[in-house]
């Protein structure tokens, strides 16, 4: 699924300095470990506010790469009032992504333009920037050392935005990822705001090995330590590869 793919590949970290080679290698390995060129899945997104109120969205998702363009289709399965609402994203190597939404109640498709990538994705704690593939050159990387999480020894890798523009685009100044040493799976990421203070923490669990030898995290949780809100993405079904052809990813097919 696109979301998870992006989230995980966003943790591919390239480094400079003393540990740059090590850090880069680790980051590449972490990216490779979760690399899928095509996948289909269904998942439940729970958005929980600081009082414990919940919004639950069930979504189906398919993603496949055609030439240089990764095309992702997300369809709402529930709640009833938004069932059938679909979202199509084209991600290009160079240019900004295109995004369309189809609303069944209006039988209408609209393109979305939004300038704020740091904004929330679907009203969750995951951001639009988390959904998009990060530009590798946008960060500098550093190996901070090793730490143990849940009995797993992890490398601790910091990636910092190289400019204010990159910060604005991503909505954070730097992030620190814990990557376990056996299979190079990312277990935790901390996000720091412009003042260098921690504001979000993501935890990834329930990695399952897929038929192609890659891993996929079936449970992801993003907590906003400032607002007390959190969002949980739990994967219900997952398969590598997608049976959908390119026509299924066309804007004209959104209403079908």
């Amino acid at each position, binding site marked *: 699924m696109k979301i998870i793919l992006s989230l995980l590949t966003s943790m591919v970290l390239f480094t400079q300095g003393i540990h740059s080679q090590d850090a880069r290698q680790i980051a590449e390995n972490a990216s490779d470990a979760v690399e899928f060129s095509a996948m289909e899945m269904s998942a439940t997104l729970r958005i929980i506010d600081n009082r414990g109120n919940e919004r639950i969205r069930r979504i189906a998702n398919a993603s496949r790469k055609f030439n240089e363009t990764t095309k992702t289709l997300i369809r709402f399965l529930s709640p009833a*009032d938004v069932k059938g609402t679909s979202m199509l994203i084209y991600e290009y190597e160079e240019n900004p992504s295109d995004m369309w939404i189809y609303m069944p*109640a209006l039988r209408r498709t609209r393109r*979305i333009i939004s300038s704020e990538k740091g904004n929330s994705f679907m009203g969750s704690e995951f951001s639009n920037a988390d959904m998009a593939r990060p530009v590798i050159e946008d960060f500098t990387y550093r190996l901070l050392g090793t730490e143990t999480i849940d009995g797993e020894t992890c490398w601790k890798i910091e990636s910092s935005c190289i400019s204010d523009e990159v910060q604005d685009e991503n909505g954070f100044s730097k992030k620190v990822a814990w990557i376990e040493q056996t299979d190079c799976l990312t277990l935790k990421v901390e996000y720091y705001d412009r003042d260098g203070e921690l504001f979000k923490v993501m935890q990834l669990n329930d990695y399952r090995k897929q038929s192609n030898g890659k891993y996929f995290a079936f449970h992801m949780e993003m907590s906003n330590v400032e607002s007390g809100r959190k969002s949980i993405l739990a994967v219900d079904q997952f398969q590598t590869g997608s049976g959908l052809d390119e026509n299924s990813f066309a804007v004209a097919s959104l209403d079908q």
Partner: protein
Amino acid sequence: MTPRNNIIRHRLWYIIVPAVITLAMLIPLRKARINPDLNAYLSDDIPAKINLDTIEKSFGKTDPVMLIFEAPDILSGKSLERIRDLSKAFGNMKEFDYVISLFDVKDIRGESGMMIVEPAVERIPGTEAEKEELRARLRNNEMAFKIVVSENFRHSLILLNPEEGLTDAEILETIREQLEMIPGDEKVYINGMPYFRYEIQKIAIRDLLILLPLALLIMIVFLYISFGEKRGVLLPLSMVSMSAVIAMGLMPMLGWDFSIVAILVPILMIAVANNYGIHIISLYQELNGRDSGHTMKSIVDQILKRLSRPIILTGLTTIIGILGLVTHIMLPAKQMGIVSAIGIAFALVFSLTFIPAVMSGMQKGKPVSIRKTDKAGFISRMLRWSGQTTTRKTRLVILVFAVFFVFAGAGISRLKVSINFENMMPRKHDLRKSARIADDHFGGTRYISLLFEGDIKDPDLLQRMYSYERELEKEPEVSDVTSLATVIRLISRAMNDPGDPMYDTIPDSRAAVAQYLEFYMFSGDPDDFEQLVDFDYTKALMNIQFTARDIRTFNRITGRISDLVTADPGFRIQAGNSLVEKQMSEAIITGQMNSLVFAFAAILILLAVIFRSFAAGLLGSLPLLFTLVCNFGLMGWMGIRLDIGTSLLSSIAIGIGVDYTIHFFWRLKLEIQQGKSAEEAVVATLSTTGRGITINAFSVIVGFAVLFLSGITILKAFAFLIIFSLLLCLLCALTLVPALCMVLKPKFLYRKNNSM
């Protein structure tokens, strides 16, 4: 042993105990705190506060500071750059929960089949053409026009909502620091309650630091001029200091913060607490001068014998009048009533214990010549004229008063209640200017929120909300109404092309509403609606912004709101700081009425009891009635509004003003009992007690006059009106009351078996 002997024999105790009490009351004063939060002046269980609390529980507390930038053209590159940099800097700060500016409010629009959600100003225009294009776009942006940019594009606003737990000083210092770090040519005005509280607190502290010593100094000069010897200054002044410390110390001791009007407490003590001491010194000088054979102890004995009763009676009436404030609804008024009454009670008791005790241990001073024989003195001339006029042209005096009463009283119909906090500030204060800009160019500083509950995505509810919006926006004073219905409508404009039946409407199906909102989530920020709808779409707010300079306009608009929404099944409550302010205005009126009626009735009864005559009660209350009617009439004619300060007036004026009539009755009765005719008795009373009454009144007036130097406008108005009222009370006691006594010849003055 009589109490008099007791005081002289155990005089050390009568000196030490008051001194110790006073010193002990200095301890709680160290914990004293000024609370300039006007909302705290009403108790928490009033409906407006409960409703506001309900809304704040779901939607967070809003207590914003507004920064208004003024420039010839706010869209000029430099001004926009400064506003951008500042709103970005504020947005990144932990001190602020949210920031609203041209760079934060959204522009939701449709363009060639796309929905665009971006900040109202996405880029700073580089060319003249781009600038005009931006201007046109802002004019069409309902979320920005007249909200963050003024109609004439000369002003723009940054609204900052501080995080809870910060002090006003911290908030304002943070803002000032940022404004200095990102400087520019634009004039910046600040508005909002945090700024108001911060400024009024500064002024209040300045007032206390300057006015108190000044009032004391004036009183020292006044006492020295009146008595010409040190003890004549020090003894009454000791009463002032003791009662002021006790009254002020009681506030923190009882767990109360000093309010803005609490500044009046020490001033009131300075003005009133020395009255009893003045009478004592006056009699001491009289006895010392008249018969040098007196020893100090015999003088003290005489003083206690002759003055105890009148001092206790006038003290009681003052205490009871001021206690009228306890029936006031505003907490500061109640608190002021209680501590002032206790302070005066202590002054009364100490005047009859501490002063005689100290005096009995003193050497007799040199006899001071009393200007009793000074026939050319202003007071003497005035009193002589008054005596002649009231005895010779009695009916004319009554007629003149009656005409004045009717004319002045007519002004009451013009009396208005102030609902503008900023009017407490000096005329040239920033807050007054920024409030004017907000009223003239941004659609006002008053906000009311309506809470709706239910399924907020229900199109029926949203359509009803939209219809209320349209109706309310027809009111000329209402500048902006925003709710989720507004947002849905704006999304419908972005989603559909003009001419499409769905364009600019609330859709008919719930699914369509839900999908609009879901759609918005992909391009906007979920926080964009935080002020309009709660997380699970069960509660929604409609925020109404309007201007209302007086309570009539305010009531008309809130009335219109109630008419529209009360019957709506989804409507729950209306709330907002404006409604708390309105309730405060009503509390001012009710409080004023309560304390006035209480003080008036209590004084009437007390007079009737003292003189054992209902007629005495009525006759003695007449000057008070006259004074109050003229006072409120004058306020009406002069456009002085009833506010938290002026609403304290009547109780205080009644409490102090009645003393003059009591003194007058007292002496007049004595003169009549000595066999004088009514005419002779009036002339004799005016030339003896009349003098004491006049000096007493002027000492009070001098004490209050220092308030003219206060930085808080409402206290200046208070000073003007209390002085006016006391002068009227004095005038009544010296002319109207004697004239009425001449005409009516009330029986109580002629009864011999009186306990007096």
